[in-house]
């Protein structure tokens, strides 16, 4: 997609690509999104909410497509629909992620709605493509700043509710007896997923949200038994995949999200293989 050739001198390569604004913005947005997705994803995985996260991104698709149709920033539509969907799921039941048939029905309807909105809009193909599969190379400076602000809110919230969120995720009944409000933790967490999903759609798109929100965290869970380490490993995997994807796509005509999805998938497969063969990466020390 450009005239600069790959040179094996990574520093020079990076300098060459960062001379372009769109590449700088891609790296900035990609980095912020990977950190947030890695952290939120860890809780998505231990709470078994991955289907809810997947569904929220589809619900967001309808919102984004509607926003495009109305000539509004699609991120606004994304945020509105994912937040609404997230609060609705949290209110429906303690673990709405288990209501897979109901959520699936809503998901399909929303995707259909999104298709309608997109087809009503004249720029049909490109808009649909970038919403469904992400277009991180098209991120503007404004988008980067918005993403950064959203990330700050998400990280501050998670730092604040870390213990009750972990407690409610691992042992809900005891957490409730100890005074944790399961309902409000659920609502706050679904809102976190909603915002994180809206951010991640820019990078990997609605259909590939799993690649950043679930796969890195699932791999991390295979590799370490401590939550804080798990979060760190999950962030590292998401970061490496995102950076690699953006870097490679500078030299090839193929989409960034393909590379991100492939890297996280390979790491996940490797982590399962590793665990199956040798227990866990950080082996317990025998007393």
């Amino acid at each position, binding site marked *: 997609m450009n005239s600069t050739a790959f040179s094996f001198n990574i520093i020079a390569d990076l300098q060459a690509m960062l001379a372009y604004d769109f590449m700088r913005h891609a790296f900035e947005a990609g980095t912020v999104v990977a950190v947030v997705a890695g952290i939120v994803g860890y809780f998505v995985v231990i709470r*078994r909410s991955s289907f809810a996260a997947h569904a929220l991104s589809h619900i967001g698709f309808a919102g984004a497509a509607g926003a495009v149709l109305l000539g509004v920033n699609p991120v606004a539509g994304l945020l509105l629909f994912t937040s609404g969907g997230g609060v609705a799921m949290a209110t429906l039941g303690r673990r709405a992620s288990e209501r897979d048939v109901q959520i699936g029905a809503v998901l399909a309807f929303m995707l259909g709605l999104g298709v309608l909105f997109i087809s009503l809009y004249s720029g049909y193909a490109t808009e649909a493509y970038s919403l469904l599969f992400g277009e991180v190379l098209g991120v503007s400076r404004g988008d980067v700043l918005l993403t950064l602000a959203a990330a700050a809110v998400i990280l501050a919230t998670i730092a604040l509710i870390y213990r009750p969120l*972990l407690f409610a995720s691992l042992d809900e009944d*005891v957490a409730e007896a*100890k005074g944790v409000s399961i309902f409000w933790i659920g609502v706050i967490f679904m809102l976190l997923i909603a915002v994180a999903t809206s951010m991640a759609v820019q990078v990997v798109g609605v259909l590939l949200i799993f690649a950043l929100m679930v796969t890195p965290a699932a791999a991390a869970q295979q590799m370490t*038994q401590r939550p804080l380490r798990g979060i760190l490993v999950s962030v590292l995997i998401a970061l490496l995949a995102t950076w690699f994807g953006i870097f490679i796509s500078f030299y090839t005509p193929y989409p960034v999200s393909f590379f991100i999805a492939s890297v996280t998938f390979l790491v996940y497969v490797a982590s399962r293989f590793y665990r199956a063969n040798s227990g866990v990466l950080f082996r*317990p020390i025998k007393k």
Partner: protein
Amino acid sequence: MEKETVISAKGLAGGYSGKTIWENADFSVQQGEFVAVLGPNGAGKTTFFRMMLGLAAPVAGSLSVFGRTPRRGNPDIGYVPQRHLIDRETGVEARELVRLGLDGHRWGIGSAHYEEAFEALRAAGAGDLARRPLAALSGGELQRVFLAEALIGKPKMLLLDEPLANLDLRREADFVRLINEVVRSQGVTVLLIAHNINPLLPVLDRIIYIANGRIATGAPSEVLTSETLTDLYGIPIEVLRDSRGRIAVLGMEESAEHHPEHRPEPRRDRGPEGRAERRSNE
């Protein structure tokens, strides 16, 4: 020596969704007693626990725990519920769960408290499980980890909801011995919901028997008689004892059919390889 009364119920009625399941309960439990809570499924045993935890309000009457109206988040109570969310994918190590029993309800990230977690695990006979992932533990091992999670805050009372379900006979006996040690050495009051009374008989001080919308309490020898249970259920019940003192209660199978409106309590279920699985409690 006069012991402190820790639970006191007067004219207490329990239920959920505006429906009364049992009523007119008057009883008290003293500090350091080992109490078994018995009764058929759906009789309202878990509801009674939830009332003591402040998670459900009495339908009528009064209940006081440590001299106060029950409230959520009482640090004097350690709780091991019947259902847990642990499954084969829960790779978190045991001490990470146990430490949440100490301060998991507080805001922020907090410190690890691994030493306290290890102490609690040792008290629960599970010191060697501290760094094992929860997914790799057997049913009996998990039960000890949950006990440690309840013990870490040094509670004065333990509420254990069917901890013996899914344990084989030997582990059942081991676990009862362990609980009894905690009761006797630390003066902790234990209320334990069980279906089979026999492994508990040698160590019990008191029985709370919930059935047929009523509650009978007393020493095992008073409650587990044909007369008391016949009176409680309102149908002929026969209590048989074998040569080793083991008890069989006959006749209450029909009683359950007399109360089809009582929903069965959710049972803790077992997945493959004896792991705890979750079921909806709605």
